[in-house]
């Protein structure tokens, strides 16, 4: 099943990476069992012609076979089926942007699209930004690291995905354009000024590559 696969993959990925200062010992073991969806109603017989549940998703460059319920949103699948918890639920209503992911390079609210709608499309999440071989941070991540971006950082994964989308479309933004490009993400710590500086730096780094 997709779950087991994902856990294995994540662990392998982690072990390869240089670990951060001040590692946290976590009290709970990661598990693939808990997930959010699936009521008696949802598990009933399927109507003829309805979309097949077992689908292939392309996430961070990897094809994954996943059993997805019809009413499952992409953020739910990522967090609760594939255990990719970098994508956050801030509102689950397409209002805050904490769940932002890229679909074919374009930023979308993961909470507000059905997983079945991304079949055959390339999904990129915060977990997929680092170079899979070297563990090197993406340009945006480097810029954020350099500028010391974010405070509580619950919004960070979403903002970073929107910055990734922005530099693809507009690698040479003004501060005002960057603010517009990021206006679909909220930061309640209101670290907007620094986030904007990160975005401008990311664009600058992207141009120099």
């Amino acid at each position, binding site marked *: 099943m997709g779950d087991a696969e994902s856990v294995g993959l994540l662990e392998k990925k982690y072990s390869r990476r240089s670990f951060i200062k001040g590692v946290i010992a976590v009290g709970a073991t990661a598990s693939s069992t808990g997930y959010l969806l699936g009521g008696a109603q949802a598990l009933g017989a399927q109507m003829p012609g309805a979309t097949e549940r077992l689908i292939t998703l392309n996430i961070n460059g990897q094809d994954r076979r996943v059993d997805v319920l019809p009413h499952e949103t992409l953020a739910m699948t990522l967090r609760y089926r594939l255990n990719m918890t970098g994508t956050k639920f801030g509102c689950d209503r397409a209002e805050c942007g904490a769940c932002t992911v890229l679909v074919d390079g374009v930023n979308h609210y993961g909470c507000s699209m059905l997983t079945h709608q991304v079949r055959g499309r390339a999904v990129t999440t915060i977990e997929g930004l680092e170079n899979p071989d070297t563990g090197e941070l993406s340009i945006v991540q480097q810029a954020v690291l350099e500028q010391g971006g974010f405070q509580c950082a619950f919004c960070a994964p979403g903002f970073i995905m929107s910055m990734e*989308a922005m530099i693809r479309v507009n690698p040479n933004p003004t501060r005002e354009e960057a603010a517009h490009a990021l206006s679909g993400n909220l930061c309640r710590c209101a670290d907007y000024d620094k986030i904007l500086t990160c975005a401008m730096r990311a664009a600058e780094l992207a141009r120099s590559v």
Partner: protein
Amino acid sequence: MAIIRDMIPAFELFQPNTVDDALALLDEHRGEAWVLAGGLDSYDWFKDRIKRPAVVVDLGGIEELHGITEEQGGLTIGAMTSLTEVVNHARVQSDYSLLATAAEHVATPQIRNQGTLGGNIAQDTRCWYYRSGWPCYRAGGNTCYAAAPKAMNREHAIMGASRCVAVSPSDTAPALVALDAKMTVRGGGSPKDHDAEDFFIGPAIDITRMTVVKPGDLLTAIHIPAVWANAQFYYEKVRDRGSWDFQLVSVAAAFQVSGGTITDARISVGGVAPYPVRLERVERLVTGTTGGESVANEAGELSVQGARVLRHNDYKIPMMRNLVRRAVRSVA
């Protein structure tokens, strides 16, 4: 039955590839099917567990509903074309910048990337009494809670209301009315084109729908005629926040100007009525003039004649008046 929110009730998903298949599905599951475009309105309903369709028909896979084509000198925009595509389309930008500007004022980049033009104009109202699942007229009940003496109706209608005082939330709708767009609706019979201003219906006609699209029908395309290409446009939207906010009042105007004289005009206002309001009397007033301050003032005053305010929305009168005034002033 206790109320719980934020968990989509189970449904069966269909992802047809053609409009015919979609229509057949809607027919087959009449009464229990829901049409999903970008979904940004739909998911709210689902997550609130107020609308609970057994079947959802996702139009995302229907190629013929996507894209912008040139037709009869104008543009035909597939209903499932994303707002971002509309904003970025070269011809829309060059000839119909009014629409590009309006579409750019919708919510946020992520929503514009996913939300569709068809979905934007066909979306349901944001009256919070209605969206909270109250049994109001629009929900099939007997009451407009928003029109009650002390109700919270700052966002509600000052004209065109009939029992229900909710407003049309669409940002692109006023622009499309100003551009004299035609909406193509397909249902059981042959496709039918509706003028934009007739496409949106008020509660006097049908209190449960905001457009002529009936259950089982599909809005398939929006055609923008050549006649208003490269007209002089004015768009402005006043909202509380710079992003993710609906209009308090917006104005979309198109003027044909020849030698400084307005030869034709179409002006539409959003956020003041259950539908985008076309200001035909104002259009007649300004046509033949050169615009300017005094005509603009007259136009503004004329536009709000007959407005009826609720407890908390009196400000919409000066706001609408001033926006119309500005639109006319912009010609000079």
